[in-house]
């Protein structure tokens, strides 16, 4: 019997439960709203997952995890060419740039990122291809489905709550003006740093997420945390209509500040002198 259908009738949780209990081996594809996700299973364990629109490149994952520098990532990416993921990982480990654990953790995070997103999909066609395994050079990390299902269900709830708290990602952010807002020596994660550096009334939350290659869930969570902490507030984006949407990609700055005028510098000088 072919395993195919629509998430409307048989949702992600149920699908994963089935694969787990039947200890299935093969590839599950789910298509929804223009996104394709493909997951591979071996004897009921999740071993790999990819999704369109999600950057699964190993050097990028390691960069994101803070294990490689921007420079290293760029150079390796440019040179890696046709090398398989496994070969590349071996090279990086042998060169002492990263540890095996770094690689496993990064790949695992990426796989989980893909699969957790699926829990929020209410609709989408799926089909299971028995015995299909990922390409040979692909790094696979076996992950127990029980944990994934529990965490996924928990996230659905959190997701629903975040969506209520922060329904509109087309709003922009600005730092709070309240003098009581205390912004110094704030402890931030790498992800929060990335978001902070893009905060500007001209950039929508969605654009910040795209520029940082973050999922809606990730950005919602970070922004929600900052809102709760009183660091930022929501504002209507400035000049939203006139501006073309910025395509994702870190090398493109979301917003270049306009050229600074002499008078601005003079005002700064005046102000600092009077401090």
């Amino acid at each position: 019997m072919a395993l195919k259908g629509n998430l409307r009738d048989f949702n992600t949780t149920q699908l994963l439960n089935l694969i787990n209990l039947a200890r299935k081996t093969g590839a599950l594809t789910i298509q929804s709203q223009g996104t394709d996700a493909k997951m591979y299973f071996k004897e009921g364990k999740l071993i790999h997952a990819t999704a369109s629109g999600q950057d699964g490149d190993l050097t990028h994952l390691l960069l994101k995890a803070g294990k490689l520098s921007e420079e290293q990532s760029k150079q390796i990416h440019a040179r890696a060419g046709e090398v398989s993921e496994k070969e590349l990982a071996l090279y990086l480990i042998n060169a002492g740039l990263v540890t095996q654990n770094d690689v496993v953790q990064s790949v695992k995070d990426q796989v989980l990122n893909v699969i957790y997103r699926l829990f929020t999909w209410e609709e989408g066609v799926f089909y299971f291809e028995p015995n299909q395994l990922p390409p040979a050079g692909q790094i696979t990390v076996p992950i127990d489905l029980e944990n994934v299902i529990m965490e996924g269900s928990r996230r659905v709830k959190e997701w629903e709550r975040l969506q209520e708290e922060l329904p509109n990602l087309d709003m922009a952010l600005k730092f709070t003006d309240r003098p009581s807002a205390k912004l110094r020596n704030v402890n931030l994660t790498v992800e929060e740093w990335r978001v902070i550096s893009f905060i500007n009334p001209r950039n929508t939350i969605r654009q910040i997420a795209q520029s940082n290659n973050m999922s809606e869930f990730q950005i919602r969570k970070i922004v929600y945390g900052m809102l709760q902490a009183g660091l930022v507030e929501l504002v209507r984006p400035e000049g939203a209509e006139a501006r073309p949407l910025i395509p994702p990609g870190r090398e493109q700055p979301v917003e270049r500040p306009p050229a600074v005028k002499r008078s601005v510098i003079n005002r700064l000088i005046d102000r600092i002198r009077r401090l």
Partner: protein
Amino acid sequence: MQTVKMVITGPFNSGKTQFIRTISEIDVVSTDRKITSDSERVKEETTVAMDFGRITVDEDLVLYLFGTPGQKRFDFMWEILSEGMLGFIVLIDSSRPETFREARRILEIFRGYAPTPYVVAANKQDLPDAWDPEDLRIALKIDPKVKVVPCLAKDKESVKSVLLELLYAILEEMDAEQK
């Protein structure tokens, strides 16, 4: 409203946090993150202190001061932080020559990001072992056109003078471009 920013960088422990704390109008605090119960957040331990200060000029103009984090592995954030900066300040602990090489490296990296003006602040001038700014200039091979300013990060007047030197350098640069 226009916001502009300056980046305060320098080796580990050179006084970046102190520098920003002395001049910023906003107070010290640590955030209490409400959403932390997330098993996906493997990077919980990599939490990093980011220095962040603000000087409001008037209703239409705000200056942000960003301090780079000390830990080396966050170097990749530098480029993002430096985007669109007016200029930067390289803070150096003048009493610790073992950090000069690193200071030089940081300076070169930041110069590579943008051709913006910068000044070098020879911090901790109150310490008996502090090197003289002019000696620092030689040790660090600083371009004669770049200012090396003595600094006491805990002293407001001193921090002001460093910021002003950078602003003067920016003005000079603008003048030079005009010609």
